[in-house]
Structure formats: structure tokens, C-alpha cells
């Protein structure tokens, strides 16, 4: 199991390197925010440890905090990224779609 998981780990690392090749400066922040949301996957860790049995009161409290943290990371991360991105208008289509985008934000 460990060896398989290590293989997955290494391959995933190369995928991560490969995906980010050339990014325009303006997208650095949204991209950071987006990857930030993806590591909210730690929520799964909280779910598994809590779901498969936590005994003590302290452990339960810690896990609720961990799950809350993970949820904030995921939901907050994706929402903030979306808000940032909705601020950029595609160069070609200024004007017409402007009002629509404003509405979507609200």
C-alpha cells in the first residue's frame, strides 16, 4: 500500500509541476487562491478521522474545529477565487456583458 501511495505521490507532484507552466502575472493571485481552495481537501481527513470513531471529548472538539477549518478553506477559497476572477473582463468583450457580470456577483 505504501509503495503504491508513494508512486501516486510522485506522479501527482509531476502533474502539479506540469500544469503550471506559463501563467500571466495577472492570474498569479487567482491561481494561488484556487490552489489554496484545493488543499481544502484536508477536510476529507477530518471527515474520515471523525467518522471512523473519535472517543474523547477533547478529540471530538478538536475534530469539529478541524472540520470547520477545512470547510472554511474549501468554501471560502473557491468563493474568493470566483470573486477575484469575476473582476477581470475578457479584453474583447468590454461593454455589453458588463452589467450582466455585475449582477452575477451580487
Amino acid at each position: 500500500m505504501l509503495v503504491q501511495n508513494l508512486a501516486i505521490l510522485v506522479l501527482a507532484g509531476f502533474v502539479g509541476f506540469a500544469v503550471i507552466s506559463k501563467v500571466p502575472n495577472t492570474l498569479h493571485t487567482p491561481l494561488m487562491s484556487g490552489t489554496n481552495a484545493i488543499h481544502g481537501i484536508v477536510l476529507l481527513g477530518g471527515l474520515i478521522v471523525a467518522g471512523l470513531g473519535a472517543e474523547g471529548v477533547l478529540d471530538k472538539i478538536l475534530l469539529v474545529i478541524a472540520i470547520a477549518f477545512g470547510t472554511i478553506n474549501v468554501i471560502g477559497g473557491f468563493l474568493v477565487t470566483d470573486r477575484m476572477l469575476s473582476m477581470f473582463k475578457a479584453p474583447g468583450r468590454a461593454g455589453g456583458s458588463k452589467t450582466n457580470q455585475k449582477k452575477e456577483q451580487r
Partner: protein
Amino acid sequence: MSRDVVIQLLYIVAFALFIYGLMGLTGPRTAVRGNWIAAAGMGVAVVATLLTPGMGNWWLILLGVAIGTAVGVPSAKQVKMTAMPQMVALFNGVGGGAVALIAWVEFRESHGFDGSPAHVAVASLFSAIVGSISFWGSLVAYGKLQEVITGRPVGIGRLQQPLNLVLLLASIAFAVVIIGGGDAQLLIIGLLVASAVLGVMVVLPIGGADMPVVISLLNALTGLSAAAMGLALDNTALIVAGMIVGASGTILTNLMAKAMNRSIPAIVAGGFGGGGSGTTQATGDQTVRRTSASDAAIQMAFANQVIIVPGYGMAVAQAQHAVREMAELLESRGVSVYYAIHPVAGRMPGHMNVLLAEADVPYERLKEMDDINREFARTDVAMVIGANDVTNPAARTDQDSPIYGMPILNVDESRSVIVLKRGMAPGFAGVDNALYFDPKTTMLFGDAKASVADVTEELKAL
């Protein structure tokens, strides 16, 4: 088909969505969709996990998710665009905090990893250390950007590096004792505390201008800690998503550092202005020339080309709408107006683009540094609104300056410069700006939004 297989298949769908979404996030046209594709992947991964046979403690899970949603959604929806960088830092921090807490619970539940395979203990403790560093480091980054703590580098000088090393070794020593069979609660608490102090001490001496790079670095670290947690829990979704973030985050950190002509080790080793170089006193007794809103208005109204250089001051004052209004007035008088966007103007790359886009400034008026730098020599008036370090000519000329080598906007090449500023305080890097003492520069002191509004009124009256 057994439930485990279904879960694994759903996880594979989730990775595919993550990777596809991330690819989308690297291009301007596909970015919005990419973000939602990645979010869908997260949804699939969560649902798959909840299908795990033997899941219980539903009320705990529900409570945690409810609290997280109640806190996360409003803070993400209501945060001002100016406060976006610290929000990202905070969201990153809680992710790291979650990892550290889970590792702590794992330790407690298994009585110090008694009977667990060695790799589980190693991976858990690694994620505890890194998660804790990321959590506390991000909190300090948040504090600095929110100006709860000073944005200036805070350090203890020469002792900094040895102290950090001692803290790191202490964290590792606690981990080694635990792996060797130690199961006292104090061991894991000691490990978490030592790495927490390390996180604080590493970020505290870093100057504000480097903060985006640091947040990106902490982001990559949280990803790595998530991947380690995945190894400990034998969960492929955590391994893949965590490692992708760890790797792509590292690349992104590098790209950001390159945009500022800084190296990651130099940033981490202690930020701008740490040594207090000799250049700062030299300008102490020089005088600056003040101007008034009406003079500034006249100067710009009769110019052929005006370049606006926005910085963090514009963001703080929420002046972007006022600026757009002023620019429109100038354009109606036949002046061509461009905006010079330094890659790290503000507190994050893209910060200014976001703000100006919010104010409906046409996209094609925003020029990146390399394109606009050729234009300054042909420009009558450059108006600097709350930008400082990114316009400091010392970055080109003064080898002793802490910001030497950083690419800057060549504002000093334009025929005249108007600087809008609250006062004579130095910029985030803590260095004086020679531009302000240039004979062709005039200063318009006051809140950026108020100053721009005054200039606009004067323009209307002309």
C-alpha cells in the same frame, strides 16, 4: 461493485476535475470555469468520503461543516477587494491548522501511534509540523497585511537564523521521540508549539512587499502537509490533491519571486531593510515640493499623455472609482490616459487589475510593466497614487538599497511626476524613495480618494 471501489472511482473523477480545473485557472479565458470545475471535484471527493463504510459521528461532522459554512461564506462574500490578500492568507492558514489538529487527534486516538506502521507515524508528524508552521505563519502574514502588526520587518538580528534552526530541530526531536515509542501528551504539544513558534519567527522578519510570495510558499506547504496526511490515512484523494498543490504552489512561488527579481531563499532568510542600509539617512534633509489640486488639474488637463501609477494607497483609500472618473474627464479633453501596472503593486500580483476592473476601467488601458516602461519618456505627467517601492529609482541605481535589482516602473523618466501620498512615511519595504526628491516631482498630500476627487472638481471647473 463494493463500496470501496465506488469511492476510489469517485476519487479518480475528483482528481481529473482538479487537474482540469487547474489547467483552466492558468488562462484568462478559462479561469472562471476552471475554478468551478475544481470546486465540483471537491464536491465529488467529499461525497465519496461520506460513503466510506462505517462512517459515524454524523452530528460532529454536521456541526463542523455548519460552523465552517457559517464562517466561510459570509467572510468570502463580504471581504473587500482590498482585503483579498489577507483573506487568502487566512483561508490557507485554517487549512494548515486543520491538518495539525487532525494529526494531534490521530496521536491521541492511537496512544502515540502505538502499533501503527512507522510510515503512518512519520507522515502524521510531518503533517503536524508543517501544518502548524503554515497555520501560525499565515496568521502572522494576515496580521501584517491587515496592519494588526507592523508590516515592517521585525527581527532579532543575527540570532534569527540559529533560533529558527533550533526550533526546527526541536520539532524534529519531539517527532523522533514519539516515533521511538514516546506517548506522553506533552511530546505532541511540544512539537506543535515548537513548530508554531517557528512559523511565527519565519514570517515575522519578512517585509510586506514580499508577503505575496510568502503566502504562496505557505500555500505550497499546506498542500504538502495534506499529501502527508493522505499517506498517513491511506487516502488517495488527499495524496493527489495535496501533492498537486504542493508542486504547483512551489512553481507559482518561484514565478512570483521572479517577477520581483527576488529569490525564495533570500526572502525566507529575512526581508527587506533588515540591515538598515546607509542610503536611508542620505535623503533625510532634502525637501519635497508640494502642489495643490488645482495646479495638478491644470498640469494634467494640458498634457498629451498621462500615466496613472496605482499602488496600495489607492486600494486603501478605495479611490479606484474616483480615479476612473478623473481619467474619463481627462480623456474627454483629449488626453490619453494609461494605467501602469507593476506586477507586485499593491499586496498581491494582479491586485491593481482587480480593483481597476471593479471600477470599470477598460482592460486595454491597463498596461503591464514591460509595455509601459517605454512610454514614460513620452509622457507629460505620471500620477503616482499610493505606490511607492515599485517606483523607487534606487532599485536601478543604488547597490546598497534593500530593493536593488527589483524591476520598477520608470516613472522618473516622464517629464513631470505628481505623487499622491498621505504623508512622508516610507513604503512597505521601509526605504525612502528618491523619486520624491526629484526636482520634477511634486507631492499632493492627503487621502488618495479625497485628493483625486479634488483634482476632478478642478478639472470640471477648467
